[in-house]
C-alpha cells in the first residue's frame, strides 16, 4: 500500500509542498491562521492561492504545450500584452466602471491572446520552426508590443468591476481561485473526456507514428498553443486587475520560466508524452509558497534568488528517480562497508 502511494506521480510534489508548509508552520505558527474580515478570508494560505493564481493558469497551458514536446517561452509577454490591452480599453472609456466596457476589455484582451497563440502555433506547425525559437520571437517582440499598447507608460485604471477579477471575492474566497478552478476543470474535461489528451500524449511521444496512425498532429499542436496563449491571457487579466494597472515592461516577467519549472516539478517530462495537470498545479503552488516563504522569513533581497535556486535544486533532486536510487545505494553500500570495517577497528 505504502509502495503504491509512493509510486503515485503526485507523491513527491505533495511531499515537497508539505515540507514547505511545515517549515512555515514551525517558523511562524500563525502561518495557517485564517481570519474573516469584511466577509472575506485573509491569511497566508489564501495569499498563496491568490498570488499564485496567474502562475497556475500559465502553467496549465504550458503543461499541454510541453506534453506535445514543445515549449512556449512567450507566455510572460502574452501576460503583459493581455493586461495592457484590457487596461488600455478601459482607460479609454468614459465610464471606466461600466460593465459592458469591462466585458469588451476582457473580450478584446482574450481575443488578442488567442491570436498570439495562433501565431505561435502557426510558426511551429505551419513554418516548422522549433518551438523554443518560434516562441522566443514573441517572447522578445511581445514586450515591445505591450509597451506599444501602453505607449511606454504604466496605465492605471479605476474600475471596481475590472478589479473584481483579481482582487474581488466570492464565497469569502478570492475570485481568482475560481478562475483557476474553471480553467483547470475545462482543461481536464477537454483532455480527458475527449480524445485530445490521448492525441497530445501520442504526438508528444512519437510524432511520426502518430501521423501514420491518422492523427492530425499539426492540428493538435496548433490547438495546444492557442490554449496556452489563452491561459496566459487570462493570467494577464488577473495580474493587471489585481494591481489595477498595466506595466508592459514588468508584468509577467520570467513567468515562462516559473511555469516550465512548475510543469516539470509536477511530473510532466520535457521530452513530451504523459502530462499531469494536477501535478502542475501543485508545482505552481510549491513555487508560490517558496516565494512567500522567502519574503516572510526576511531573507535579504540580494540573496532571495540564491535561496530560491537552492530549494528548486533540492526539489528537482528529490524528484529525480535516478538521484534517489543512487543516493539510497550509496547509503546502503556505506553502511555495509562500515559493518565490514568494524571488526578491524
Amino acid at each position, binding site marked *: 500500500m505504502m509502495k503504491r502511494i509512493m509510486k503515485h506521480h503526485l507523491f513527491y510534489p505533495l511531499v515537497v509542498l508539505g515540507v514547505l508548509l511545515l517549515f512555515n508552520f514551525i517558523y511562524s505558527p500563525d502561518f495557517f491562521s485564517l481570519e474573516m474580515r469584511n466577509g472575506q478570508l485573509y491569511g497566508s494560505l489564501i495569499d498563496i492561492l491568490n498570488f499564485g493564481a496567474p502562475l497556475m493558469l500559465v502553467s496549465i497551458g504550458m503543461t499541454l504545450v510541453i506534453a506535445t514536446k514543445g515549449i512556449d517561452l512567450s507566455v510572460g509577454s502574452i501576460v503583459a500584452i493581455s493586461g495592457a490591452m484590457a487596461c488600455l480599453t478601459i482607460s479609454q472609456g468614459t465610464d471606466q466602471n461600466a460593465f459592458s466596457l469591462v466585458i469588451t476589455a476582457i473580450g478584446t484582451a482574450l481575443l488578442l491572446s488567442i491570436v498570439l497563440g495562433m501565431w505561435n502555433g502557426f510558426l511551429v506547425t505551419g513554418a516548422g520552426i522549433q518551438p523554443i525559437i518560434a516562441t522566443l520571437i514573441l517572447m522578445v517582440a511581445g514586450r515591445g508590443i505591450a509597451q506599444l499598447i501602453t505607449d511606454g507608460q504604466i496605465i492605471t485604471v479605476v474600475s471596481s468591476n475590472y478589479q473584481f477579477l483579481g482582487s474581488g471575492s466570492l464565497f469569502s474566497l478570492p475570485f481568482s481561485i475560481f478562475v483557476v478552478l474553471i480553467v483547470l476543470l475545462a482543461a481536464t474535461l477537454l483532455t480527458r473526456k475527449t480524445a485530445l489528451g490521448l492525441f497530445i500524449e501520442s504526438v508528444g511521444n512519437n510524432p511520426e507514428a502518430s501521423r*501514420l496512425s*491518422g492523427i492530425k498532429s499539426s492540428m493538435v499542436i496548433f490547438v495546444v498553443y492557442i490554449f496556452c496563449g489563452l491561459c496566459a491571457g487570462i493570467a494577464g487579466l488577473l495580474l493587471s486587475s489585481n494591481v489595477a494597472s498595466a506595466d508592459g515592461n514588468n508584468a509577467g516577467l520570467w513567468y515562462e520560466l516559473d511555469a516550465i519549472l512548475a510543469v516539470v516539478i509536477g511530473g510532466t517530462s520535457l521530452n513530451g508524452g504523459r502530462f499531469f495537470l494536477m501535478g502542475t498545479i501543485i508545482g505552481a503552488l510549491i513555487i508560490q509558497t517558496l516565494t512567500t516563504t522567502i519574503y516572510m522569513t526576511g531573507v535579504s533581497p540580494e540573496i532571495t534568488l540564491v535561496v530560491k535556486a537552492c530549494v528548486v535544486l533540492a526539489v528537482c533532486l528529490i524528484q529525480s528517480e535516478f538521484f534517489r536510487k543512487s543516493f539510497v545505494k550509496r547509503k546502503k553500500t556505506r553502511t555495509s562497508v562500515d559493518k565490514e570495517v568494524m571488526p578491524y577497528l
Partner: protein
Amino acid sequence: MSEQQSILTMTGIYKGFPGVKALDNVSLRLFSGEIHALMGENGAGKSTLIKVMTGVYTIDEGIIELDGQPIAVQSPLESQEVGISTVYQEVNLCPNLTVAENIFIGREPRKFGRILWKEMNEKAKKLLSERLHLEIDVTLPLHDYSVAIQQLVSIARALNISAKVLILDEPTSSLDQNEVKQLFNIMMKLKEEGLAILFVTHFLDQVYEVSDRITILRNGQFVGEYMTTDLPQLELVSKMIGKTLQAFEEMPKSHKQNKQDQWFAEAKGLGRSGVIEPFNLNIGYGEVVGLAGLLGSGRTEVARLFFGADRADQGTLQFEGNKSIHSPRQALENSIAFCSENRKTEGIIEDLTIRENIILALQANRGWFRRIPRKRQNAIADEYIKILNINPPIPEQLIKNLSGGNQQKVLLGRWLLTQPKLLILDEPTRGIDIGAKAEIQKLVLSLSEEGMSVLFVSSELDEVIRVSDRIVVLRDRHIVQEMTNTEMNQQSIMKAIAGGGGK
C-alpha cells in the same frame, strides 16, 4: 570439448520486473574461439540476458564470472572495460560524426589534451582494413555509408575496446544477403582470432551456418545448451517453442485467382522522383499481393505511397474506382491500414499503454470529440489481447515493456480494429520469433479469406510465397516482374531480383 575452460560463465541468473520473471535460473557459457547462438522466442529473455551481461540491468541473483573471476558490472561502460562489447540491433553510433570519430569516441588519441586527428584516422583505417577487410574513407560522416557498413563500424568500435567477448544482437536483421555473407566472414575471422562471440538472431539458417554452440531460452527459463552439430533444426524449433511445430506445414495454401475486373486499388504510373520509378500495380478485393526485392529496391516506398505516407509526384492512385488519398489521415478514412517496418520509430507510442496503442488509430478516425468510452476501450483491449495472444495480457502495461513480437501484435491489433479493406504490412515479421511469425502469417491468410486485401512486404522469400496470391518483384526502384501461382517459387523470384546481370 567440455574440459575446455569457458571465458564467460553465467550461472543461476534471476531477474524480475514488476509482474514478470524475465530470467529464471538461466545459465550461459561462452568459450573463446566459438560462436555461440542464443535462441528463443520473443519474450524468452534473450534481450534481458544480454542487458544483464552488459550492465544495463543488474541481476537479482546469480553469478557472472569472466576468466574465472566473479564480476558485477553496473553499467555498459564497466562491461566494456572488462572486455564485453555489444553491437546492438539498431546501430547506435552518431551518424553525423565521421567513421574514425565513431570508432574512437571517448578514447581519442591525444597529446596535451589535443586530439591527434591524423593518428586517429590512420588507426581507424588500419583497424578496419586489417581486422574487417573494409577499405573505406574514415573521414566521411557515418551516415554516408550503408547500414551494413555502419554495423561493421560498430563492430570495429567494439573490437577496439579490446574485447574478449563480442555480443551481436540481431546483427543481420537489416542486412541483405551479400552483406550477411560479408558479416559472417568477419565473424569467422574474429572467431579464429580467439574471440568469444554471442550471436542472437531469428534466422535459423544463419545459426546453422556460423554457430558452434546453441543455448536455448524459453519463457525466461534455461532450456539447454547444445552443440550445433548435435541439434537438428526441427528439434531446435520445437525446443524453442516447447512443442513440435506443425504450424507451417498446416498452413492452408489456396491461391486465389483474381478474376474480377474490379480492383480495390489501382495505381497508374504512380511514382515519386528519386524514390520509386513510376509503376502500375493493382490490388484486387481479398487478394494478397506480395512485394519482394532487396532492401532499398523500393518495396517500402511502394507501400508508403499506397498509404499516402509519402506523396506521389506523378501518376494516379485510385481506390474503389474513384477515391484518392493524399495523407495517412485520408487513407484511414478510406479503410486503408499501414503497419510500418520501423516498429519503434513509426509504430508504437512508447509511453502509452497497450490499450491506448490499440485504440489509437480508431480514435484518430473518430476524431477528438467522439471519444471511445473507457468501458469499450477496455473491452477492445481485452478482446485483441486474446485474439492476438499478446503477452503479458495486461492492458495497462506500457508498450515499451513488451518484446518486439508482442509490440508488433499490438500494432496489428491497432489496424485490425479499424476494420481496413486494405492492410499494408511492411516486414510484419521482422525480428520476431518463429511462433509469432506463423501466427501472423495465418492471420493474413484468414483475413484475406474474409475479403480483406493485403499488400505484404517481406524480405523472406518463403514467407512471401506462402501468403501471397500474386508476387511483385522489385529491383533498383523498378517493378521488374509480376508472377502468379505456378511461377511463384524461390528460384524464379531470386532470378527476378538478381536481374539479367545476375549469375
